C-alpha cells in the first residue's frame, strides 16, 4: 500500500537540494515532490517535500537522507476545513503559497487540495468563520 508523507528538510551549501529528490528516485524508486523551497543568500535553505511510496521504503529513504547530512523533520500537522462552515468567500486563496486553496472557475466555490498543503498555517487566521484548522 503506497502512502504520502511530508517532510521539512534543511540543507547547507555542502548538500545541494536537488540531490535529495535524486536519491529518493534513483535509490528507492519513491516519488518525491518539492512543495516549497527557499534558498538563502549564504547557500543554506529549507524545503518542504512530499514523498509517495511504500511506508517502509519511505522510512529507509528518509534515513538515507538524514545519513547524508540533511536535517529532516517530519511534518505531522495538516490542514482541515469544516466544509459546513465555509461560505466560499475566497479570503484564504491569495495567502496559500502552494495554491492548495483554489477557486473553481466554473462554480466559484473554494476547494482545498490537501495533497500540496505544506501546513504553513498562513490561511488559518484569514478565515472569518474558523473553518480552517491546523491539526497536529
Amino acid at each position, binding site marked *: 500500500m503506497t502512502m504520502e508523507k511530508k517532510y521539512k528538510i534543511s540543507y547547507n551549501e555542502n548538500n545541494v537540494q536537488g540531490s535529495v529528490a535524486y536519491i529518493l528516485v534513483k535509490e528507492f524508486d519513491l516519488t518525491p515532490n518539492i512543495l516549497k523551497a527557499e534558498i538563502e543568500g549564504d547557500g543554506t535553505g529549507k524545503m518542504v517535500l512530499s514523498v509517495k511510496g511504500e511506508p517502509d521504503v519511505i522510512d529507509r529513504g528518509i534515513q538515507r537522507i538524514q545519513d547524508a547530512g540533511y536535517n529532516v523533520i517530519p511534518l505531522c500537522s495538516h490542514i482541515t476545513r469544516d466544509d459546513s462552515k465555509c*461560505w466560499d468567500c475566497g479570503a484564504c486563496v*491569495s495567502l496559500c503559497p502552494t495554491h492548495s486553496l483554489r477557486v473553481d472557475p466554473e462554480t466559484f466555490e473554494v476547494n482545498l487540495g490537501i495533497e500540496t498543503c505544506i501546513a504553513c498555517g498562513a490561511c488559518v487566521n484569514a478565515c472569518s468563520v474558523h473553518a480552517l484548522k491546523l491539526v497536529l
Partner: protein
Amino acid sequence: MAKTYEEINERIRSRKAVVYTAEEIMEVVKKKGIEKAAEEVDVVTTGTFGAMCSSGAFLNFGHATPPIRMTDILLNDVPVDGGLAAVDTYVGATSLTKDPKGGYGGAHVIEDLIAGKSVHLHASGPGTDCYVRKEIDTYISLDDINEAYLYNPRNCYQNYGIATNTSGRTIYTYMGKLLPRMKNATYSSAGQLSPLLNDPHCDTIGIGTHIFLGGGEGYVSWQGTQFKTTPEEVNGVPVGGARTLALIGDMRQMDAKYVRGLDITGYGISMAVGVGVPIPILNKDILQRCCITDEQIYAELTDYSLPSGRSCMQRYNYAELRTGSIEYEGRKIRTSSLSSYSGARKVAGELKSWVENGEFELVKPIRALPREAKLKSLTEEWM
C-alpha cells in the same frame, strides 16, 4: 414597448414571467438582440453575499412578571443596546463580548437566533415604580420573543476598492489579511451580479423595493448610510463605493446560511448577508444596464498600510481580479475575493425561482433614492 410593474406582476401571478439572473441575461441579449429581449424578459435578478458591518437586528423580548426596564443587556455575553424602550433592543453586528479573543459578536447572536438556537439573555435595570424588577436571567429564541427584524443601515455597496499592502509587515484589516510587499490584494464586490451595478443610477431600485434578504423577503427602507453619487464612472458605473441601501426584513423567514457572523482577524466582527434585488425590465435601457459584465466594471487598487490618503495606484476590472492575480509595475500580485461569488449566484438563482414560481411579486418604489448626494467628513474642532 414599455412594460409596467402591474403587467409584470400579472405575469408573475400567472407564472408566465420570464426571469433571468444578471449573469444569464448577457447571453439572452446577445442571442435575441436588445429590442426583442426587452419585450420578452420581465425580470433580471441580482445578488451579493459579502461582509457588511453596518448590519443589525431589532428585537422585542416581551415583558416578564414583574416587568423590568432593561438598560444593560447581554445576549450570549454580547452587550446590545439598552437605550430603547423597556424590552426593545438593537443588536449591532460588530458588538463584541468583553473578551475580544472570543471571536463572537452581535452578528453571531443574529446568526444563532436565525438558526433556531436559544440565546442567553442577561439584563439589568434601575428598577422604577412602574418596572420594579432589577434583573433577569433567561434564554430566548425566535419562537418566544415578539418582533425580530434585521435592519441594516448600509448594505449592497455599489462597488468597492481593492486593498494591498506595500509595507514590510503583514497587516490585518477589514479587507482581510494583507501580506507584506504587495504579495496579495483583496476585493469585495460581486461585480456583474451586484444589485447596484445592474441598476447604477437607481432607476428602479428605491424606497419600498421588494428584495431577497438573508433567505427571506425584505424591503429597501431608505438610502444606505454613506450614500454618494460623486465617484467617477467608467462604462456607466462608478469605479468605487458610491450608492448603498438600507434594508429591512423579518428574521423569522431567514436562513442562517445567508446570514453569517464573521470574525475578521485583527479587525473585529462583521456580518455577511445575502441580498438579492429583482430588476423589472420596464424598457430596453434598463435591460441594457443589466448586461454589464465584469470586464466593464473597474475598481481601484489602494495601499492599506497608509493610515489615510490612500490614492489610486491602478485600476483593474473584475474579470482580471477573478483570474487570481493582477500585475502592478511588472510584478504579479495574487488576488482574493472577500465576498462569495458562488453565494451571490445562489441568491440570484433562488430569487429567480421565487419570481418564476409566482411566490414573489415586485413592488414599485414609493420614493426614489437621491439623484445626487455628497459625503461629509468628520472634522475636529479646535478651541
